[in-house]
C-alpha cells in the first residue's frame, strides 16, 4: 500500500535548495522554479504599472490636472494598461501559480515540455525588454488597444509604438506556449486514478484558459504584425487613407482581446473554487457544473467580441447578434457564483487571508458581471460607452476579480511555495484594506461614469462637478496601495522570519497538500494515489504539526 503523508517529514532537500546559484534558476527546467520566477517578475511589473496608476489618479485630483501634460497623461494610461494586461494579469495566475501548482495538483513530476516552459519565461522577459524600449524611445500614447488609424499615424502617435507592438507579439507567443504545455500536460501526464472528473477545479479552469490561449492568441499576433507592416511599409490594411478598414482592426483586436478577459478571469475563478471549498472545509457544490461552466465560458468567450464595438460603426445586424450572445455568458458565470455560495452554506468557514480574498472575489465579480449587462445592452451602451462606467466595469472584472483571485492564490499556496507561514493577522488586515480601497476607488468611477464623465481626459475643467468623485477615487487608490505595500512587507518578512509551514496548513485534499512544504525536487517521493480532492472528512487538525493530517482510521484511496 502506498502511504499518503500529510505531515512534514524531515526533508532537507527541496526545490529551493536542490541546486544553487543564479544560473540554476535562470536556466532551470523545474516547473516550480519557473513558476516562482514568473511570480517575481509579474509582481515587479505590477509595481511598475501600479506606479503609473497612482500618477493617473493624482493627476485627476483637480479639474485642471495636477502635474502632467495631456501627452504625458496619454502615455501614463497607455503604459499602465499595456503593462497590466500583457505583462501582469494575463500571465499572473496561469503562468505564475499555474506553473507551480498544476503539475503537483495533477500528480506529475513536471509539465509535458519543460524546455518550452523555460522558453516561455524567457519570451516574457524579452517582451518586457521591448516594452521598456518602447518607453525609452519616445513612449507610446495609443491606449493599450493600439487602435488604428491613430497607431499607424506617424505624425501623431509616438515612437514607441513599434517596440510595444513587437513586445506584445512576443508576449503572445509566451502565452501560447504556456497554454500548449498545460493542455498536453493535462492530457498526457495524469497519473493512474486521476480521471477528468477527479481533477481539482483549478485544473479545469487552467485547461479552459489554455484552450483560449492557443486558439485566440495567434490572432492578436498576426494583427499586431499587420500593424507593424502597415506602419513601416505602408500597405493599406487598416488605414482608410490607403484603402484599409479601421473597423476590421477592431474585429481582429477584440477577437483575441475579449477571450483574453477570460484568460485573466477563468484561472482566478479556478483559484476561488479551491479557496472557497478548502477554507469552508466543505465539499465543493456542483463539481461538474463548475467544471463544465469553465469550458462553456471559454467557448462563449469567442462569440462576443463585437460588444466592444457597438459604437464603432459596426453594422446593426452584428450589434444585435453580439448583444444577444453576450447575455449568454452570464449563465455559466452565474453557475459558478451560485455553486460557490452553496458551498459556503453550512460550511465550517475559516476566515483566513485566502478566504477573505475568495469572498472579496465573489462580491467584486458579482458587481463587475452585473454591470457588464448594462454594457451588453445596446441602448445603455451608447450612453455609457467611453465613460468612467466602462473603466470601473473592467477594473471590477480584470483587477478586482482577476488580481484578487491571484492574491488569494498567492496566499493560499505561499506556505507550499516558500515553506514559511506569513503573519495571519497582517494578512487579514491587508486583504480587508485591499477590498475597501478597491471599492472606494472604482465604485466612485461607476457613479461619475453614469453621470457622463468621459474616460481618457487629462483635465475636466468644463466639468468641475466630477471632482468630488475623483477625490474619492484617488483616496481609495491610496488605501488600495497601502494594502498592497503591507502585503508585500509581511510576505517578504515571512521568507526570512516566518514560521515553518506544515505540509497542509489549510486542510486541503488535492495532491499538492500531500507533499512537504516546500515540495521536493521531484514533487512526490512516490506516486500519490488519487481520491476525491474535495472530501475533507478524512482530515483532522494536528496540534503538534500545526496543520492537517489524515485521521488514523481514515480509509486511504486505493484501499
Amino acid at each position: 500500500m502506498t502511504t499518503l503523508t500529510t505531515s512534514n517529514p524531515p526533508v532537507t532537500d527541496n526545490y529551493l535548495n536542490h541546486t544553487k546559484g543564479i544560473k540554476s534558476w535562470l536556466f532551470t527546467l523545474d516547473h516550480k522554479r519557473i513558476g516562482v520566477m514568473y511570480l517575481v517578475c509579474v509582481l515587479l511589473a505590477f509595481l511598475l504599472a501600479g506606479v503609473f496608476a497612482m500618477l493617473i489618479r493624482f493627476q485627476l485630483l483637480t479639474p485642471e490636472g495636477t502635474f502632467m501634460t495631456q501627452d504625458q497623461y496619454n502615455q501614463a494610461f497607455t503604459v499602465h494598461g499595456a503593462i497590466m494586461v500583457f505583462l501582469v494579469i494575463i500571465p499572473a495566475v496561469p503562468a505564475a501559480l499555474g506553473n507551480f501548482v498544476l503539475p503537483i495538483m495533477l500528480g506529475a513530476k513536471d509539465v509535458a515540455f519543460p524546455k518550452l516552459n523555460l522558453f516561455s519565461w524567457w519570451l516574457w522577459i524579452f517582451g518586457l525588454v521591448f516594452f521598456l524600449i518602447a518607453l525609452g524611445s519616445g513612449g507610446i500614447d495609443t491606449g493599450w488597444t493600439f487602435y488604428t488609424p491613430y497607431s499607424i499615424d506617424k505624425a501623431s502617435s509616438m515612437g514607441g509604438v513599434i517596440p510595444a507592438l513587437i513586445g506584445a507579439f512576443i508576449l503572445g507567443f509566451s502565452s501560447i506556449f504556456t497554454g500548449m504545455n498545460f493542455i498536453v500536460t493535462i492530457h498526457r501526464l495524469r497519473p493512474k486514478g486521476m480521471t477528468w472528473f477527479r481533477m481539482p477545479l483549478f485544473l479545469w479552469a487552467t485547461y479552459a484558459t489554455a484552450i483560449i490561449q492557443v486558439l485566440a492568441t495567434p490572432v492578436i499576433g498576426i494583427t499586431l504584425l499587420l500593424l507593424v507592416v502597415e506602419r513601416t511599409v505602408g500597405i493599406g490594411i487598416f488605414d482608410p487613407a490607403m484603402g484599409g478598414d479601421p473597423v476590421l482592426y477592431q474585429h481582429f483586436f477584440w477577437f483575441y482581446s475579449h477571450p483574453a478577459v477570460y484568460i485573466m478571469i477563468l484561472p482566478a475563478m479556478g483559484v476561488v473554487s479551491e479557496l472557497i471549498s478548502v477554507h469552508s472545509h466543505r465539499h465543493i457544490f456542483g463539481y461538474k457544473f463548475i467544471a463544465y461552466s469553465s469550458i462553456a465560458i471559454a467557448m462563449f468567450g469567442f462569440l462576443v467580441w463585437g460588444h466592444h464595438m457597438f459604437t464603432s460603426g459596426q453594422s446593426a445586424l452584428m450589434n444585435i447578434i453580439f448583444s444577444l450572445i453576450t447575455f449568454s455568458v452570464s449563465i455559466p458565470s452565474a453557475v459558478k457564483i451560485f455553486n460557490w455560495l452553496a458551498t459556503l452554506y453550512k460550511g465550517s468557514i475559516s476566515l483566513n487571508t485566502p478566504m477573505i480574498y475568495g469572498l472579496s472575489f465573489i462580491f467584486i465579480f458579482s458587481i463587475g458581471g452585473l454591470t457588464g449587462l448594462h454594457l451588453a445592452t445596446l441602448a445603455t451602451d451608447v450612453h455609457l460607452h467611453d465613460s468612467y462606467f466602462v473603466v470601473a466595469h473592467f477594473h471590477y472584472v480584470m483587477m478586482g476579480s482577476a488580481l484578487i483571485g491571484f492574491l488569494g492564490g498567492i496566499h493560499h499556496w505561499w506556505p507550499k511555495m516558500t515553506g514559511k507561514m506569513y503573519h495571519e493577522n497582517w494578512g487579514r488586515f491587508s486583504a480587508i484594506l485591499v477590498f475597501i480601497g478597491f471599492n472606494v476607488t472604482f465604485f466612485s468611477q461607476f457613479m461619475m461614469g453614469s453621470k457622463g464623465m468621459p474616460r481618457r481626459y487629462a483635465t475636466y475643467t468644463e466639468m468641475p462637478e466630477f471632482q468630488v468623485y475623483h477625490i474619492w477615487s484617488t483616496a481609495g487608490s491610496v488605501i488600495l496601495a497601502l494594502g498592497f505595500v503591507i502585503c508585500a512587507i509581511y510576505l517578504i518578512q515571512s521568507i526570512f522570519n516566518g514560521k515553518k509551514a506544515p505540509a497542509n496548513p489549510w486542510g486541503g485534499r488535492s495532491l499538492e497538500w500531500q507533499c512537504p512544504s516546500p515540495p521536493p525536487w521531484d514533487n512526490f517521493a512516490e506516486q500519490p494515489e488519487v481520491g476525491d480532492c474535495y472530501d475533507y472528512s478524512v482530515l483532522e487538525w494536528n496540534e503538534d504539526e500545526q496543520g492537517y493530517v489524515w485521521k488514523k482510521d481514515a480509509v486511504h484511496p486505493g484501499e
Partner: protein
Amino acid sequence: MSNTDSTHHEDQVGHIVPVKFLVFICCILLFLTAVTVWVSRYDFTEINIAEMGIILALAVAIVKATFVGLYFMHLRWDRPFVGFIFVGSILFVVLFIGIALTDTMEYQPSIIKGDTPKVTEAMDKLRH
C-alpha cells in the same frame, strides 16, 4: 514515482508511410498546382462567369490542403480526436473570418465616401 506507468502515456511509434506513397501524393499536389496555374490563365469571361477562376483556384487549394492534412500530417491514420481538433480549428477560423467579413459587407452602404465639408474645412485649417 513515474508518469510512464500511467495508462495515459503510452510510448507510441509514429505511423510510418512508405516513401513511394508520399512521392505519389506529392505528384498529385504538383499536378493540382499546374491546374491552379492553368486556371489563372484561362479567361472565364468567355463563358460569362468571371468569378469562376477564383472559385476553381480555391476549390483546388482545398483539395490540396485535404491531401496534405490526410497524408503528410497523418490524419488519415491518426486517432479521430486529432481530426476533430483539426476540423474544429478550421471551423474556428471560418467563424472569425466569416463574422468579420459579414459585418464589413453589412456596413458598406452606411459609409460616407470622402470627408464631409465640415471635416474637410477643419483638416484644411490644421494643415495650414
